[in-house]
């Protein structure tokens, strides 16, 4: 096991720069998830750690050793590919034992390690099948088995669950996390799915267009997003935003939104009078007016009601924006009805409209 240190790493394909100076410190044994929209450079960064892509600038170290010029086979990292990349002409057993065989490990050692990994991953009965004869979830486990047999310094996962159906994805998520808790191998996990990131990570790195937007624990990012991008990316359903101008008059603060809608804010909110801001509130922090709002809430019209059983989700329109609200109690809402939604004062986020930074 080892730490991974990424310093000012840049990557260009020809003249197109896709990674613009990224720094991440990954501690020994940590489970770090790189998350971001498609095309933001997650895979590229992961492949640079693996040694499958040249590093254009900066350094990557694995366990104190700078690996920029070290070949993939000598980096002692194992990777699970999105399409699994199982060797089609080898049985599950041979797929898992291939790396040891190349290292001329003793037959008994190979056998022991493969059987042990198969045991952990519930593959013991499938060892003599070929990849084609396996289901998606089984292939996924074989790919992980191939990685753990090697007992590498670092595990790299590139969207390993994106080819699985929703139910299996949730199950495998738990399995991978349990596996990490058992093996405690440093892991870098790439996904575009923020739920995967939230549920699995010790720490999340949110990437966007080749830069790091924010690094933090899942709840850190959820409660204190550094900017509009992170606020909008983390959380499902996504945070509601209302654009407007901040007004202060000494004793109170409010936002003037489009169409003249006014939204009263607690006086303590940051920002100066006249500043263009984006007001953000998570769906579960919008509460129903229970009579004492004194006009502080947002008057909205219900567009859609979506009960999930555990929760009740509504989409409503206010101030020219669509807002989502989630309630744990069951209310008799109907589309077209008016509703007053009050943001919980301690859960309000204000962002600078220009820079997108959290105020």
């Amino acid at each position, binding site marked *: 096991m080892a730490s991974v240190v990424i310093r000012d790493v840049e990557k260009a394909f020809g003249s197109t720069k896709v990674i613009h100076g990224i720094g991440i410190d990954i501690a020994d044994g940590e489970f770090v998830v790189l998350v971001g929209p498609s095309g933001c450079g997650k895979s590229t960064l992961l492949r640079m750690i693996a040694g499958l892509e040249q590093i254009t600038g900066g350094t990557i170290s694995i366990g104190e050793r700078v690996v920029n010029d070290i070949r993939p086979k000598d980096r002692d990292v194992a990777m699970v*590919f999105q399409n699994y990349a199982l060797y089609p002409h080898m049985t599950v057993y041979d797929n898992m034992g291939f790396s040891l065989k190349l290292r001329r490990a003793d037959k008994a050692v190979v056998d022991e390690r493969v059987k042990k990994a198969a045991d952990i991953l519930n593959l013991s009965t499938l060892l003599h099948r070929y990849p084609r004869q396996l289901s998606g979830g089984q292939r996924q486990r074989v790919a992980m088995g191939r990685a753990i047999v090697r007992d590498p310094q670092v595990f790299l996962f590139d969207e390993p669950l994106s080819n699985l159906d929703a139910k299996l994805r949730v199950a495998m998520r738990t399995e991978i996390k349990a596996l990490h808790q058992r093996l405690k191998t440093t892991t870098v996990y790439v996904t575009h799915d923020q739920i995967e990131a939230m549920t699995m990570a010790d720490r999340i790195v949110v990437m966007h267009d080749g830069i790091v937007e924010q690094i933090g624990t899942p709840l850190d990012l959820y409660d204190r997003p550094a900017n509009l991008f992170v606020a909008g990316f983390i959380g499902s359903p996504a945070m509601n935003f209302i654009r407007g101008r901040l007004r202060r008059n000494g004793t109170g603060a409010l936002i003037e939104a489009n169409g003249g809608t006014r939204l009263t804010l607690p006086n303590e909110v940051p920002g100066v009078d006249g500043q263009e801001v984006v007001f953000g509130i998570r769906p579960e922090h919008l509460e129903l007016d229970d009579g004492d709002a004194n006009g502080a809430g947002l008057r909205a019209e219900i567009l859609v009601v979506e009960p999930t059983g555990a929760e009740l989700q509504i989409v409503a329109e206010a101030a020219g924006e669509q807002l989502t609200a989630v309630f744990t109690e069951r209310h008799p809402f109907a589309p077209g009805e008016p509703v007053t939604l009050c943001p919980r004062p301690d859960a309000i986020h204000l962002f600078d409209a220009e820079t997108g930074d959290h105020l």
Partner: protein
Amino acid sequence: MATVVREAAIERRESRLARIFDHPTVLSVIFMLPAGLLLTLFLTYPLGLGIWLGFTDTRIGRPGAFIGLENYISLFGDGVFLLSVFNTLLYTTVATVFKFAIGLWLALLLNNRLPFKAFLRAIVLLPFIIPTVLSAIAFWWMYDTQFSIISFALVEFGLIDEFIDFLGQPNAARASVIAANVWRGIPFVAICLLAGLQTISPSLYEAAALDGASAWQRFRHITVPTLMPILSIVLTFSVLFTFTDFQLIYAITRGGPINATHLMATLAFQRAIPGGQLGEGAAIATAMIPFLVAATLLSYYGLQRRKWQQGGKDD
């Protein structure tokens, strides 16, 4: 009561008929019947006629009589025929080995990231798109005793003193026609194998590299086994084409010198048409069939879907 029983019987009969027609074997026979009949008619008639002629003493302009195995018996004592069998086997074996060695090498080369890749691929295809007769004439000219560009170049570089007699000596002539066949056959092999190489997912190589495989080990453990199915198909076709080659030989040497480059196909033609002995020519051609069947059977086992290719989709 009675009607009910009868109806039940009808139903049972119908369902038995339906079951028979639902049977995959029955169905496939029925569906293959039309195509099978056409093939039988248009493929087996010429083949059957050829084989029949081999058992007769037909000459051009004179219908022959059935003479049983006489043609074959006389061929077994015919030195020229036996030489042509030897030539054909030699020609096929040596040419195939070279075609595959060079073709695979070229395919691997072209599968890399190369500058001007499309251009290079087009160049590799050139020998294939030039009409065989045209390239045969070009070779004939290159092998000419007086005007050979090869001899000329070698002399200019000071490597040899006098022009090589490419087509005048038996072994030199054999090597020369084999070289021409290899030149002509490489594109087919290279392009087919390149197509095969391109179906191998790059992530397999990446996974192998991370697993610790060197370039040679990646070739040995990933490329070769995954390429094997297509390799055996290409090998079969290449062997069949080479074994039955006619054009190149006929245009370059016509079987000479002293029958040293006569293949079974060229000898069959020579005996049958210029020689007029249709029956004997047909017998020589028919004698190729066992070799071809053997070659096909051998590669049939290579062609069979391997165990790892069976079952499920592989996305």
